[in-house]
C-alpha cells in the first residue's frame, strides 16, 4: 500500500495530533552522529524554508525536526537530524521502506521574500545548517534577485561538517562566499579554526543593506547577533531560529514558550528585536 492510500485514514477526529505516514526512501549518513532521511509522503511536500515537521516513531515518540530539502523543487521530504535521544536514534536507524509519522509543516519561515535587492548573510552553527539549507536553495534558485550571498558555517570539528560535498560545490561558485570554521581542528584541516562569530568582521558585505539568517546553539546565536549588530546590520533585518522543547508543534502543549511566544507557532524563526528582551536572560 502506498502512503497516499494509507493517509486517507488520517481524516476524522483528532486530526491535530494524528500523523500522516511517509515511507523512507533513503537514509544517508552525513557524519558520525547525523543522518539525512528522504521520505515519500505520497506526493510533493510543500513547505517554506525554515519550517519543521513533527516526526513520529510508533511506541517511541515524536520530535520536531526542521525540513532541510529544496523548497523550490517539489519532491520528497528531506530531514537532516542528529541522533541524540531515543526518538532521533530510532529515526536514524530506519531503513528504506519503513514508515514514519509526519505532522506539519509547522512554524514561521525564513523571510526570504524580504531579501530582494539585499545582501544575505547566513550564519550556521552545527546542525543549524539543516534548517538554513532550504533558504540557501531558495536564494540560489533566484540568484540574480540578490546582492552578495555569504554562508558562514561553524562546526565542532572537521568530522562534524554537514553536507560536505555540497559545501565544496558551493565554495566553487563565483556568486557565493562560503567560509567554514571548526572549533577544534584535526591534522588534516587547513581552514579556519575558531568560533563562527570570528568570521563576521572578516567578510565583505553591505551591513545596512543586509538580511541575516542565523541558526545554531543559542549562545552562538547571541554572539553572532552581537557581531552582526556591531557591523551595523539593522536589528530588524536579523533573524534567528530558536529551539525549545516542543511536544505538539501547534501551540497547545505549552512547552516551547519563551516570554509571550510559542516558539512552535510564533517561531521558530523570529526577527531579532522581538526576542532580544528574552535572550540572554538566564533560564527564561
Amino acid at each position, binding site marked *: 500500500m502506498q502512503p497516499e492510500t494509507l493517509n486517507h485514514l488520517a481524516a476524522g477526529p483528532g486530526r491535530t495530533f*494524528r500523523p500522516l505516514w511517509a515511507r523512507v526512501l533513503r537514509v544517508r549518513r552525513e557524519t558520525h552522529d547525523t543522518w539525512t532521511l528522504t521520505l515519500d509522503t505520497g506526493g510533493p511536500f510543500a513547505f517554506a524554508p525554515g519550517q519543521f515537521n513533527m516526526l513520529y516513531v510508533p511506541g517511541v515518540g515524536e520530535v520536531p525536526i526542521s525540513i532541510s530539502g529544496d523548497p523550490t523543487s517539489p519532491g520528497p521530504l528531506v530531514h537532516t537530524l542528529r541522533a541524540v535521544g531515543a526518538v532521533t536514534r530510532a529515526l536514524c536507524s530506519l531503513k528504506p521502506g519503513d*514508515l514514519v509519522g509526519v505532522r506539519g509543516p509547522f512554524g514561521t519561515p525564513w523571510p526570504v521574500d524580504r531579501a530582494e535587492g539585499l545582501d544575505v548573510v547566513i550564519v550556521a552553527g552545527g546542525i543549524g545548517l539543516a534548517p538554513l539549507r532550504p533558504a540557501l536553495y531558495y536564494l540560489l534558485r533566484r540568484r540574480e534577485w540578490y546582492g552578495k550571498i555569504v554562508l558562514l558555517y561553524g562546526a565542532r570539528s572537521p568530522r562534524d561538517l554537514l553536507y560536505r560535498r555540497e559545501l565544496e560545490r558551493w565554495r566553487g561558485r563565483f556568486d557565493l562566499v562560503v567560509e567554514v570554521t571548526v572549533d577544534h581542528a584535526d591534522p588534516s584541516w587547513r581552514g579556519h579554526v575558531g568560533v563562527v562569530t570570528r568570521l563576521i568582521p572578516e567578510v565583505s558585505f553591505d551591513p545596512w543593506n543586509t538580511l541575516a539568517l542565523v541558526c545554531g546553539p543559542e549562545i552562538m546565536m547571541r554572539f553572532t547577533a552581537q557581531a552582526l549588530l556591531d557591523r551595523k546590520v539593522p536589528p530588524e533585518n536579523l533573524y534567528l531560529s530558536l529551539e525549545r522543547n516542543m511536544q505538539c508543534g501547534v501551540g497547545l502543549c505549552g512547552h516551547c514558550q519563551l516570554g509571550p511566544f510559542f516558539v512552535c507557532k510564533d517561531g521558530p524563526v523570529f526577527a531579532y528585536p522581538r526576542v532580544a528582551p528574552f535572550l540572554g536572560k538566564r533560564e527564561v
Partner: protein
Amino acid sequence: MNAYWLSRDRLDALLEALKRRGYRVIGPVMREGLPTLAPLERARDLPWGVEARAAPGRYEVREDAPKARAFDFVLTPQGWKRLLFPPERLLFRVRRTDLGYEVTTPDPEAEPPLALFGVRPCELRAIQIHDRVLSQGPFADEAYTARRRAAFIVVVQCTRSLETCFCASVGTGPEAREGFDLALTEVTDGFVVVSGSFKGADLLQEMDLPEATEAQQREAREAVARAARSQRRRLDPQGLRDLLYGNLESPLWQEIGERCIGCGNCTMVCPTCFCTTVEDGSDLSGREAWRIQRWDSCFSVEYAYIHGGSIRRSVASRYRQWLTHKLAGWQDQFGTLGCVGCGRCIVWCPVGIDLTEEVARFREQHAAVAAQEEQP
C-alpha cells in the same frame, strides 16, 4: 433578561429535564468528606449545609451549617477542568498491519454530552479562557472542542466568598453575566434563575417556572454584592504585564524560589493551566503502540528539556515562568489574564505562597526602584 423562581423542591425537576435531554449531569457531591465534582443524581446529594474555609495552604470543610443552602462550600478542591480537558487521554492507537500502520482515534462525539451543574463565575471564565486556548487558535484540540460545544453549563452565582477568593478584583465574579446556559443565585428558600442561551431558555420554558418576585431578585443581587464586598484579597490587573516582563531579573524570584518547593500543585488546580505532555507506549509484540496525553506542569524539570539539559533548572526560574505566563504572557497570547481569581493555587500551595502578595511585592519593589531613580 427574565428572572424565574426555582424553589428548592424543583431542583430535581431541573436535573431530570437535563437528563431527559441526554446530558450526563456533573455537580458537587460529598465524597470522602469533601465537596467533589461527580455525577449528580438527585438534588439531595448536593453539599447541603457544607461550608468550606480556605487560607493559604489550608482547606477545611464544616458540615454543620444550616442545611438550607447547597452552595456555601463555594469552591470544590478540584475544578471543572478535568471534565472538559481530562488529566489523561488517549490521543490515538497505532496498529501495525501487513499494509502499514492503522490509526484509531477516540471519538469525543460518541461520549454523552455533559451538563456542568454548579459552575462558579470564575470557573466559567476559566472555561471561556480554555475555549480561546484550545479551540480558537490556528490549531484546535478537537476533543476539547467537541466536548465543550456539546456541554450545558449551569452557573451558580457566588453569594459567599472564600478568604482566598479575589475574582472581584480581576473582574471574573462573583457574578457571571454571559457564557452560561442557566445561572442560578441561591437565596432563602430557593434560587433565582436566568437563562443565557437558547438552550437554557428552552429548558426554562419546559419547566414552566414562575417569575421571581422583585424581592427575591433584590435578595439575589444583594447577596452577590455582599460576596464581592467581603473579598479582602486583590490582584490589580493594571500594568501587570509590563511589571512582570520588566522584572524578569528581579532578586524577588530567587527569594520566592527559596520558599517554593516546585511541586506543581498550583498548576494542577489552576482552572486555566493547559500544558500537556505525551507518553508513548507499545505492547510487547511491537504490533500496537499508543500515545497518551497527560497534564504537565511548568514546575517539572523535564518541562523545558532540550538536548543538553533543562532550560529552567532552578525552582525560581520555574515559578517565574508560571507567574509571568499566567499574568503577562497570557495577555499577549490570548488577550486575557490567565488568572480568574479563584485562589486555588493559594489554597493548595503546601507552603502557602500567595500570588496576590507576590505581585504586590513586585509592585512595591518596582515603585521603590523608580523612586530611587528619580532622586538626583
